[in-house]
């Protein structure tokens, strides 16, 4: 009997039906909080846009990470693909941290927290994969490719412009401003190589031509990170949700895009 009453109460709170009177609803809600404080935090949390956004991104990032883990972590598999898998994993862990922080009653908006390191780590992996591995394969440093080294500077310029307009010229506290500055610096570095590899005529090996879809996705991901950071700092829940969903979609298809590219190159 008692269990039935509890079930009905939870049902009423979530769907807001069956109860007509406002006073009755308040009474039921208070009774429910009193009886099930943990569940209430969870249900309340589900209405939290930041939590929903983090869950979507986390699930997508881990699917990408597991896909990459299965496909790329065998002997003699491309280290480049492993780095991108790690990028998805790092993002997934960062999001998991933020989910746990929200669910345990912590704050993810106003103070420094380790979830930011997920974004930073993920961007560093993407930068490292291109800067440390792929770029030396494609670019021999000759003068004939000079314009393909200058044009990609547009991506870091756009990232810096975004930072100046949306972060520097708005009233943001010092610590979030510094964190956003660090993220912008890494986005700038990573996006330079992604744009470069998107337009670079890879005449010698042809591997970069096969990875154009991945480079496009990585470029979108990097700017989504900036937009999401802006949403978090300014406390724009809806923007955080939209960017979280888009980031999730990009992370979901990033590792399959790399796999497709590598397969295309090797066959």
């Amino acid at each position, binding site marked *: 009997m008692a269990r039935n009453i509890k079930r009905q109460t939870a049902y009423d709170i979530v769907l807001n039906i069956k109860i007509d009177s406002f006073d009755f609803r308040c009474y039921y809600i208070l009774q429910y909080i009193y009886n099930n404080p943990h569940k209430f935090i969870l249900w309340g949390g589900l209405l939290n846009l930041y939590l929903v956004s983090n869950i979507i991104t986390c699930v997508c990032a881990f699917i990408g990470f597991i896909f990459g883990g299965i496909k790329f972590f065998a002997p003699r598999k491309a280290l480049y693909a492993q*780095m991108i898998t790690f990028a998805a994993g790092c993002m997934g*862990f960062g999001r998991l941290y933020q989910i*746990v*922080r929200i669910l*345990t009653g912590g704050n993810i908006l106003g103070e420094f927290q*380790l979830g930011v390191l*997920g974004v930073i780590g993920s961007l*560093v992996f993407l930068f490292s994969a291109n800067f*440390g591995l792929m770029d030396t394969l494609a670019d021999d440093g000759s003068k004939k490719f000079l314009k393909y080294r200058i044009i990609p500077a547009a991506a870091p310029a756009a990232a810096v412009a975004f930072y100046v307009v949306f972060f520097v010229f708005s009233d943001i506290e010092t610590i979030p401003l510094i964190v956003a500055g660090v993220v912008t610096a890494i986005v700038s570095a990573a996006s330079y190589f992604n744009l470069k590899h998107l337009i670079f005529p890879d005449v010698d090996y042809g591997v970069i031509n096969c990875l154009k879809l991945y480079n496009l996705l990585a470029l979108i991901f990097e700017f989504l990170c900036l937009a999401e950071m802006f949403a978090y700092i300014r406390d724009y829940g809806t923007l955080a949700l939209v960017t979280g969903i888009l980031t999730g979609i990009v992370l979901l298809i990033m590792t399959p895009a790399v796999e497709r590219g590598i397969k295309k190159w090797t066959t």
Partner: protein
Amino acid sequence: MDNLIYTLFVCTVAPLILMLLLLQKRSKLIVSYMIIGIFVSLFVSELNTILLGLFNDDMLYVTTAITPISEEIAKAFPVLIFAVLFSNDRDKLLTIAFAAGIGFAMFENMVILVQNIESVSIGWAVVRGFSTALMHGVCTSAVGYGMSFVRKKKKLFYCGTFALLAMSSIYHGIFNMLVQSEYKYFGFILPAVTYIPIVVQVFRNRLLNNKSAVTG
């Protein structure tokens, strides 16, 4: 209490140092790094006290957002020295990194045991013994993997190690947050959930390597 921690340190490290003299090359290296891990744990316990003071004694915030970074950096430092000065062999680095992590966890458990002597039980020891030790071992090994590129690919070493350090700090932070919350059981199983796929992957790779060696 401080004296007790130092007493514990001497009691733990002294027999291990004596044992070092009798060990062969690889075992010597592993035990050395366990001792180093114990020493790092002692250093970090002092450092954490200072950090706690800097953040107004907010234990929850410090243990979930600050100490994961300081502990991971402190544990990674001896592994970095080995990678730069002696060898960048991946197997060796992963082994010594895991040993440093286990040494760190061992002493951390002892410190917590001494600080909470009234409330500890066998159950506590089993849970902490498995979960914390695995967590520290997995985190330090992840950073050790990045350091294996120190001589082969310098560009990859700097960025990769930093990114892996970030990843292990987050992982450590999640663990610390979970074990202090009402979802602590998830915290206890988290290291095992990550450790098992790594072990499976290592065995799978060994099998594949053996197979390819046989087929020539």
